[in-house]
């Protein structure tokens, strides 16, 4: 605790008020960037990228599916690391970020699963196959739901934060183990036909819009995370004088 006192920037970074005020300024720009990236990526990917030789137009769903999966997986690590930072340095803001990251990540995982199923029907002839990636995504969804559900086991949110952070860390250790074991299991049981080629072998005309979409999804993730965290800050800090002042200002405006 005494050590942290010297790191004033670190403490400022951990202040919910500082975060709230900074994001107020960042959000419009970041939202604009997100919107332009997503629109560019979608239009480019759906209208201008060439058709796939085998799959025809149905492959275009990857412009939603792949970014959602990538950010959903990264989101779990973001959540777990935010929790770990909270546990180690006891920063409230970090717990708030962790709490906000869980539903966003779960939603993205869900989108990835649904788009994967829709894509699977024309490609493999079935909505669901027990492919390594799909199975891992399903388990990831359960890991997210577990973190979200565990909160309600505690009546004190300090304890709930710590418990979620511990579970997040346990999950983080497990995600690679789960992925590897599911991968190994899948090679044991499934014929190799389902394996699809990796992204780098894609034609640049197809690949570039995908990159734009992935960056766009990351930006979208950042925007939603900020919005969720801001709401969380107001919910938890409602006793703080700056929040009370903010509320009275809003009331005067009306």
């Amino acid at each position, binding site marked *: 605790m005494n050590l942290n006192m010297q790191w004033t920037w670190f403490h400022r970074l951990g202040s919910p008020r500082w975060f709230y005020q900074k994001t107020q300024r960042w959000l419009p720009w970041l939202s604009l960037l997100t919107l332009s990236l997503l629109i560019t990526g979608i239009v480019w990917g759906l209208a201008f990228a060439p058709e796939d030789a085998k799959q025809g137009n149905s492959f275009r769903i990857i412009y939603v599916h792949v970014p959602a999966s990538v950010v959903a997986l990264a989101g779990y690590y973001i959540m777990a690391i935010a929790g770990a930072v909270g546990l180690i340095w006891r920063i409230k803001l970090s717990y708030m970020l962790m709490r906000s990251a869980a539903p966003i990540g779960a939603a993205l995982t869900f989108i990835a699963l649904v788009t994967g199923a829709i894509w699977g029907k024309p490609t493999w002839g079935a909505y669901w196959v027990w492919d390594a990636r799909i199975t891992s995504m399903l388990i990831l969804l359960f890991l997210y739901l577990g973190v979200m*559900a565990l909160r309600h086991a*505690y009546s004190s949110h300090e304890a709930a934060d710590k*418990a979620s952070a511990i579970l997040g860390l*346990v999950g983080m250790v497990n995600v690679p183990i789960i992925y590897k074991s*599911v991968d190994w299991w899948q090679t044991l049981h499934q014929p190799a036909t389902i394996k699809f080629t990796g992204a780098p072998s894609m034609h640049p005309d197809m690949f570039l819009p995908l990159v734009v979409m992935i960056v766009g999804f990351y930006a979208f993730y950042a925007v939603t995370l900020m919005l969720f965290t801001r709401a969380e800050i107001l919910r938890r800090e409602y006793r703080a004088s700056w929040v009370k002042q903010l509320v009275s200002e809003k009331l005067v405006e009306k």
Partner: protein
Amino acid sequence: MHNYLSAGFIAYLTRDLLLGVRNKTDLVKPLIFFLLVSALVPLSIAPEAERLAQLAPGMIWIFAVLATLLSVERLFSDDLQDGSLEQMLMSPNLLIMPILGKITAHWVMIGLPLTLLSPVLGVWFSLPTVAVTPMMLSLAIGTAVLCLIGAVGAALTLPRQGGVLLALLVMPLYMPVLIFGSATIQSAVDGLDWTAPLVILVALLAIAIALCPLAINAGLRLAKNG
């Protein structure tokens, strides 16, 4: 120092074993559950030896997972209710040893009997005799991992001992054990080398012994704050 380390382990191991012996019904319940659900399989699928033998590796492992999940819930809850958890957490020594002692006792009372009972299931499901040894080895090691992971979930869900919540937390983490556990039996049935998946189970056990007590320790300390 060495004495301090082992003392906590042995003290909690022997006490929990003694408590288990005194409450025999609690011990027997998961085992009866294990046998009962197994008896449902032939009834719901088909009593044909071939089909049963095909399903056996997976089925045996699913039942083992369910039986450990049922029992692990009570690992810390009795201690929380009667106040002995507070006394354990107050110990000046490393808490890891009492925790490992309790989990070992739990394994001796749940995992080991399941392992010893499993040949019965092997007979019921017409499992080839070559697969019996790998099955027992995989169950013995695998249930130990399940106990350790399950204890993490039990510690974190202590304030609200919700069976469903515990299952939600723990089941995804059980996947690797389930995969390599049933793969050990399957490989033996198929006449392949079954030591490879078994060795991975041992590796998982090593990781679980190293990391789970840390998470359990942190989780138990939150229970009082719930």
